[in-house]
């Protein structure tokens, strides 16, 4: 554990950072890792992807170490969502290998990926994440009810306890388990979707996040960063997230991979990981700024 | 089950009327095929008949569903409707209800057949209607087609009534006119189906001579199909016949078209039986059951046709 110094250096203090409501207690949770190059990593790699290919992307190789937070930055249509969805088994990979710790996995569907300890928080909350008419508790504990149940009977008390612990941990407001999730604000909805994987009833080795704070307001955004960073630091979860917002990459990532046209074309870390560096990296990677043209 | 009812009838009918003179105030008529025109006619005529005797007539709304019929009958038994005249869609299925009715001291009259548990019955042989039609058609074929030609049957195999009529019609015809080719047996009980099936058959056999229907409605569809493929309405080498005695068919028969025969039941006779049989049971009469005759009407039977049409009006 070499301390948070490297991170602070990596994040150019933007004017935002000086404002009172922002840059909160995030640094308390900075994980014990500031050496993004795999060779020097003091912690073992948790996620290892080699030569992964699928329709529209690849080959892609990357590693995420225990407790490391790696960002994927690129323009719209660069393929970040596809990479994450393929790792999660929602799309079939056409080639490549995927290892979680020691185990090689080839998930054919999300349930397989979850079994191997990989979880995904999708970008499209409404279409892929939420059950609007179901309660907050049902939304978050859906994958956990079966795990918690005994002899196919739900452990109602345990469920409530897990939910309450989670609501406190992510700072859910209002913390009402019975409220339909459609009645929560966007930020709180995102916390609930996140909470699906980071509650006491579930152990996640690799957390994939796609645009983790889309449509989320300033305060909730900081809280989500805090929770994710805390998870990486305390439980050693490997975090791989995609974002279109350079500010978010700088705020959350230990290391950032630049994605363009379905491949990883660059990497930034340590002091070099600044918003400006990110923007010029994508600009260099894709000098023709018409990503959707080739995409569609 | 047919034919085993006579002795039990008297035994059963004696129960509800030990005094031999109970006056009936209500009769329940349970006729499941509410979609048939005959239903409305029967209800109208038997209501009038019942009124003459100061009896009110109740009806069920079964919509041709055996399930609904069973639950409606159960409702009546629970309600103790004093006399029930029921046309069971499935005779076997009515047995428990009939027994329950008798056990409750009610009068149970079976319509269109007979049950083990009943007070009396109103019988008419479905097969007899089919046989009459088949015989008439066979006779016509021998006379006008020298026993050759092609015939199509519009049949029904979904309910007992249909199966009996179908069997009577086909058996009688094929026995008496073995030289006529049977080119089709198609399920059809309504005019729409009769029309489209006959059209399809005509496409393959444009020289089709005879169409016999298990119902007049289906046969009427066949009649229209033949006309629409260019047959003159009085074509000498064509024969269409049906069963029921429904108004459009009777009119066609009367007008001398090639719709030549209908095996008809007289609604007035049935209506009278619906009221009189339960009354006879209630009065303790010795042999209350009634056999309603089926008659084949043809072009020559103008008076009968007019009488039937009047009853249907």
């Amino acid at each position: 554990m070499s301390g948070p110094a490297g991170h602070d250096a990596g994040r150019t203090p933007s004017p935002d950072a000086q404002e009172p409501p922002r840059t909160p207690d995030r640094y308390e949770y900075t994980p014990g890792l500031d050496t993004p190059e795999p060779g020097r990593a003091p912690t073992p790699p948790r996620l290892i992807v080699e030569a992964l290919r699928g329709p529209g992307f690849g080959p892609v190789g990357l590693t995420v170490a225990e407790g490391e937070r790696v960002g994927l930055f690129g323009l719209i249509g660069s393929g970040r969502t596809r990479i994450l969805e393929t790792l999660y088994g929602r799309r079939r990979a056409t080639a490549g290998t995927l290892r979680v710790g020691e185990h090689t996995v080839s998930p054919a569907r999300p349930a397989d990926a979850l079994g191997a300890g990989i979880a995904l928080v999708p970008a499209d909350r409404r279409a892929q994440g939420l059950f609007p008419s179901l309660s907050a508790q049902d939304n978050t504990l859906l994958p956990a009810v079966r795990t918690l149940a005994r002899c196919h009977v739900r452990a109602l008390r345990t469920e409530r306890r897990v939910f309450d612990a989670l609501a406190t941990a992510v700072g859910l407001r209002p913390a009402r388990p019975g409220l339909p999730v459609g009645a929560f604000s966007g930020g709180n909805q995102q916390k609930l979707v996140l909470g699906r994987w980071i509650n006491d009833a579930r152990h996640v080795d690799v957390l994939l996040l796609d645009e983790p704070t889309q449509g989320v307001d300033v305060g909730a955004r900081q809280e989500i960063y805090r929770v994710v960073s805390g998870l990486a630091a305390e439980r050693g979860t490997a975090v791989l997230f995609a974002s279109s917002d350079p500010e978010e990459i700088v705020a959350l990532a230990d290391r950032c991979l630049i994605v363009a046209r379905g491949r990883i074309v660059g990497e930034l870390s340590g002091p070099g990981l600044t918003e400006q560096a990110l923007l010029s990296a994508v600009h260099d990677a894709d000098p023709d700024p018409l990503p959707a043209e080739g995409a569609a | 089950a047919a034919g085993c009812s006579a002795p039990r009838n008297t035994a059963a009918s004696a129960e509800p009327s030990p005094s031999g003179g109970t006056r009936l105030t209500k009769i329940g008529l349970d006729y499941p095929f509410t979609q048939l025109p005959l239903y409305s006619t029967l209800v109208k005529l038997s209501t009038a008949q019942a009124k003459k005797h100061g009896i009110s007539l109740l009806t069920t709304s079964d919509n041709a569903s055996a399930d609904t019929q069973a639950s409606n009958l159960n409702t009546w038994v629970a309600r103790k409707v004093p006399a029930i005249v029921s046309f069971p869609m499935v005779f076997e299925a009515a047995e428990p209800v009939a027994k329950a009715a008798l056990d409750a001291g009610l009068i149970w009259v079976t319509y269109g057949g007979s049950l083990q548990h009943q007070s009396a019955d109103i019988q008419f042989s479905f097969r007899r209607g089919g046989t009459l039609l088949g015989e008439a058609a066979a006779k016509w074929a021998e006379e006008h087609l020298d026993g050759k030609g092609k015939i199509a049957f519009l049949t029904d195999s979904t309910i007992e009534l249909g199966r009996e009529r179908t069997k009577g019609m086909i058996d009688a015809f094929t026995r008496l006119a073995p030289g006529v080719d049977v080119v089709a047996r198609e399920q059809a009980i309504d005019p729409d189906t009769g029309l489209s099936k006959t059209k399809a058959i005509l496409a393959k056999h444009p020289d089709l001579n005879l169409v016999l229907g298990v119902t007049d409605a289906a046969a009427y569809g066949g009649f229209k199909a033949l006309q629409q493929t260019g047959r003159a309405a009085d074509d000498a080498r064509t024969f269409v016949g049906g069963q029921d005695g429904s108004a459009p068919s009777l009119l066609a028969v009367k007008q001398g078209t090639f719709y030549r025969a209908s095996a008809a039941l007289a609604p007035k006779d049935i209506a009278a039986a619906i009221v009189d049989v339960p009354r006879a049971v209630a009065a303790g009469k010795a042999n209350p059951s009634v056999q309603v005759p089926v008659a084949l009407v043809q072009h020559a039977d103008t008076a009968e046709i007019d009488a039937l049409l009047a009853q249907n009006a």
Partner: protein
Amino acid sequence: MTTADRVLTRPRLIATGGLTTVRRNPLLLVLVAMVVVFQLTTGSFLDPANLGGIATDAATLAIVAVPLALLVISGYLDLSVGSTLALGGLVAGWLAGQHHQSPAVALLGALAAGAVVGAVNGVLCCYFGLSAFIVTLGMLTAVRGLAQQLFPLPLSGFGSGFAWIGGARIAGIAAPVVIAAVVLAAGALFLAVTPAGRHVFAIGVNREAAHLSGIQVRRTPFALFVVTGVAAALAGAVKASVLDSVVAGTSGAGFELAVLTAVLVGGVALSGGSGSILGVLLGVLFLGGLQNGLTLLNVPTFWQQMAQGVALVAGAALAYFAPRTGR
């Protein structure tokens, strides 16, 4: 998705792109296969007389299937058409037969009756927002009861004037087929070249977004309910004219399921927002041809029933796999 796109991006009536049309309507292939098989096995399937018979039978189905398809595309459903058909036939027959009115008056009377039923459906489903499934199922029962109450006895003998509606030949083609062709063309034109045709798709895809775009999300489906009722009554009048008789209890019984099946097999999604009139035409011909061919083949009744059930499932499989393979 793709089905809608299909219809929407190319405002032409019946796609003329040859191969593209086939790829987009795989039912066409099945139809061709069916025709070939039936012709080879029966030898008389393609006789003009038989084809004419199929067309006449399919005509009433098509007349109702077109507006019903539009209704389904806009996200609604009408199960009451079977009873409305009976009511329309009865009113037309009653006016022409008992009251010796001209065919035009008889027809107008029938259409008015159909419009009333459609309007009741429309008000309850579009303006009060009740479930179209339950409302129109209730109307199916209620209208049948009403028809039987009003006309307990069969009607027949409507006169030669009225017989013209179902029996006339226009350029050698039976009048019902001509009517169906007009309805099909009107439906296709409506979807392709009128603004309201766009609105139908938009409402079916996303009602809220359509409302926020300033579209009358209630009036358009309401009008479609009325048109569906009118079409059902028209089909009833045509049937009454063809058969020269109507029976309140049995006329059009089960028709609602036949029409809906044709529409759905024709590739219109029950969830709304996608479908084409060409597909509906194919669905209608598929069902009509299947019934006819099985009769020609002398398939025993119960095997016919099984074959029809299996064909329906096969049609669903096709309609389902089509969009994907079509891409």
